[in-house]
């Protein structure tokens, strides 16, 4: 069974579908808990009308199910805290700057 830290490390492999920045560096991951074989993940999105919610959840499920011992992934969505640019990590900012995107 993976620890919450191991799940978080795996989530670094999952990129935001619109920009190839990890969802962890995007600040979308708000909580990870391992509950028997079930991994519970709380995500936020950059807007309530985010066009990628299903894609992100599909990608997260696919990645986390590859961790040994994981049977299922359960999702919750939160809007508290509300996502702002402040949630971007320095790594994400550096990548955006390279692409000429102001953050």
């Amino acid at each position, binding site marked *: 069974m993976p620890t919450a830290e191991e799940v978080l490390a795996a989530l670094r492999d999952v990129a935001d579908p619109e920009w190839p920045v990890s969802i962890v560096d995007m600040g979308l991951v708000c909580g990870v808990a391992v509950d028997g074989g079930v991994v519970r993940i709380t995500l936020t999105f950059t807007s309530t009308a985010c*066009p990628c919610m299903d894609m992100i959840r599909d990608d997260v499920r696919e990645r986390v199910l590859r961790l040994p011992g994981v049977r299922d992934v359960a999702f919750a969505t939160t809007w508290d805290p509300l996502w702002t640019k402040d949630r971007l990590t320095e790594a994400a900012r550096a990548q955006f700057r390279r692409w000429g995107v102001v953050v």
Partner: protein
Amino acid sequence: MATPSDEQIVERIQQGHVLESPAEMSDDYRRTLIHILTVSADTEMISAPSYYTAAKNSPSMNNLISALAIIQDELSHAHIGYRILQDLGVDTEALIYDRAPTAFKHPYAFDVPLRSWVELIVANAFYDRAGFVLLGDVYRHCSYGPWRRALAKVDKEENFHLRHGENGMRRLAAGGQRDEVQRAIDWMFPMTVEWFGLPDSLKTHGRQIAYKLKGSTNDQLRQQWLRTAVPLCEGLGFRVPAHFDRAADGCVLDYPLPVDFDEAERRWLMDRPITWDQVLVRWKRRGPGNAMFVDMLQRGRRQMRALAGVH
């Protein structure tokens, strides 16, 4: 500064020079760039009404939001292309709003209306993949700096669109809509193969490649598309009229390109080979959705002009 000759331009570009303004261009370079940009901007633009018509069939609110985000991206890509055309001295107002539908330069594929959510998903997987291949090639090679830089954003977004198509196909394949997906693949796969145009044996790319407005030939680009589209479909258990050939170290088609297309039935007549001249006749005539889609783009402007008494 005197206008450089074509030979001087080609030599500079081959040495890695990137052009930054129309003043550095020869007439022929400028004409060639305008042509390629017009095809690209028209393609992005016309995909909006085509996708929008199909998006009305979205099975859920989330799906509709995804589809609309893609349409909004396409319009912004079109805007980038037309904006660069303006800097090259093109009257884009007339280009967009006063052109006859048949004069638009997007691929014929977008003239064949999509009829369902499933077809929109397959269009994201196939058509946006073609866009990704073609624009990725420009992004890596383009000798005109302003376009090349603008494509950094476009490249990322097209990747999102084709992944939307892939994820969507995976969901549909698992969700009991296999037959409908297969029917969409049956007409849309050959449609995208044809999109890449004349084979290298019939087309000379001389100028476009010498100017680095294109880095690869039609056959190379078609092959790039096939190399990811074929495994995607096969991996999900769908039939495609192409396969990977170890000896050729690439994908080969299982039918003679080009073949005849029954527009009304949206069916390729695989046993009826035609010539590329015949394909060009169909492309120039344009397809069944051409007038409707261009009208969707132009109608609002026409109504505003009428209200303001401008003709």
